[in-house]
């Protein structure tokens, strides 16, 4: 059995490392230790919006058991949660509350957009009251497609998130440098949201047909 490499990115040859470990010394980066602990205990928010919430609950029950990945502590209050799983359709009436809850969460915080509706509006995209993707207002870390995604998919999205957490650099990551990230809460005017999207987070995709002139002629 090989010992796990506790010092990734540190220039240390194997013999020196083994010698140090025999003496009870482990050389590691703060980033590595911190991210290892963070990724192993992500606390999600108990936040069900629609159909996907049932599969989110199912992923926490005995058959799928999200606690194997350290995330069984669902907190009902945003002040104690790290991860927001936007599980379901975000309507225009609900979007301000979703952003407000996100703003209340302490750093570092992550978002999984679960299901087709949270990603893009899904089957209800044509509806007059459905927000076409929560990423218009808050940054999303993992997009989890499906309608609804299976509980196994929820677990996989958590694994992807943990992978992302492992690559975090404490010195440069916005979660640790700019303080608690807060985004302006849109206002529901009764018919639509004002503003329609947050330009800091999301920009409408460029029109693929509107090519620059030199590219089109080349």
């Amino acid at each position: 059995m090989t010992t796990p490499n506790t010092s990734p990115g540190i220039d240390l040859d194997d013999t020196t490392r083994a010698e140090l470990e025999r003496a009870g010394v482990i050389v590691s980066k703060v980033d590595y230790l911190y991210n290892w602990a963070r990724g192993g205990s992500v606390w999600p928010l108990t936040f069900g919006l629609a159909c996907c919430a049932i599969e989110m609950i199912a992923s926490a029950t005995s058959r799928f058991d999200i606690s194997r990945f350290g995330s069984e502590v669902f907190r009902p209050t945003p002040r104690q949660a790290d991860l927001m799983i936007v599980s379901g359709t975000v309507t225009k009436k609900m979007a301000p509350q979703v952003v407000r809850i996100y703003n209340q969460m302490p750093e570092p915080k992550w978002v999984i957009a679960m299901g087709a509706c949270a990603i893009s509006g899904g089957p209800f995209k044509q509806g007059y009251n459905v927000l076409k993707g929560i990423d218009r207002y808050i940054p999303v870390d993992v997009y989890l497609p499906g309608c609804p995604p299976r509980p196994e998919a929820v677990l996989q999205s958590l694994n992807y998130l943990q992978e992302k957490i492992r690559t975090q650099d404490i010195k440069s990551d916005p979660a640790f440098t700019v303080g608690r990230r807060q985004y302006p809460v849109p206002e529901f005017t009764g018919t639509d949201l004002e503003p329609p999207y947050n330009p800091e987070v999301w920009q409408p995709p460029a029109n693929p047909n509107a090519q620059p002139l030199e590219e089109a002629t080349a």
Partner: protein
Amino acid sequence: MSNATATAPNYELIQRDGLDTGLLEISMGPHHPSTHGVFRMDVKLDGETVVDLQPVFGYLHRNHEKLAENMSYLSSMPFTDRLDYFNSMTNNWAYALAAEQLIEIEIPERAEYLRVIMSELTRLVNHVSLVGFFVNDLGALGTPLLYAFREREKILDLFEQASGARMMCNYFRFGGLRNDVPEGWLDRAREVVDRFPKFLDEYEKLLCENEIILSRTQGVGNLSKELAISAGITGPMLRASGESYDIRKVDRYGIYDRFQFRVPYSEGDVGDCYDRFMVRMLEMRESIGILKQALDGIEDGPVLGNAPKVFKPKPAEAYGRIEAPKGELGFYLIADGTPKPYRFRVRPPSFINLTVLRDMCLGQKVADAVIILGSIDIVLGEVDR
């Protein structure tokens, strides 16, 4: 109606022991662990007693009806799955019943049997989960819900084998079912059905005479028979208030006239949370009886009549209703000769059952308001549509 509706006492400022204590207003929801989704209750409290309650919904309004009016009849079928997302099979059936009235089509025998089997399995899923969530609201965090979801998974496996999806089955078609069940499915279904009573025994032993459940639910959230009928309450909630009314018996839609089953209802005129809980527990036993009879009676044959995929029904109206696990689920369609319905209206049981929430909560403690909401059994996808 005047006697039946409870009225809020006129509190302005309460003086008690020389202290001036006003009313406390709290907004429970839309993000609240006990509201079963995105539902908000504006509660006015005197101490801990609820003196007024205003339900606020519309946080999950997904434009079902408007979307359905802009697509062909069959295209609406997957959308009905997402109304009451616990019970996609029964939603499918209610919609298929309404549309089948417009096109007058024969349904094969095997399809009728499978429809009954799927619906009763759905009823088991719904009731077992509801009881789990209800006890969760009472404070029994975890265990009963985990037991419930363990059983739910077994039935969802059956749904997945038959239709390819766990929750959003989209399995029914006008004139039958999309496909036949795979080989050996009926045996597996029988195995699940045969084992279910053993689980129910365990569940009942744990919950039905539990001291905490008795004291928290008995006499809480009373709903009189008179008010229940005048408010249009249906389903287990109406039966808990003492009225034996079940559309499976009244309409005998499908082939329900072939099965022997009883309709559990409460004898008294109390209609409290415990009655609503017990009626659901007893209904599961009856569902198992229906399932056994249906699994015995089913024979080989086709599962889909010759229904066209796109059709233009003559201008007509149709209303199809079934006894969904939550109450009367109806679909009202107006056809105008085009491939799309002119009007598509859903009669959602949980929305109409929710209308008496204020009457049941007045005078109760705020912690009981949570239980009362849990005992109504709402799903917000259906309430807001």
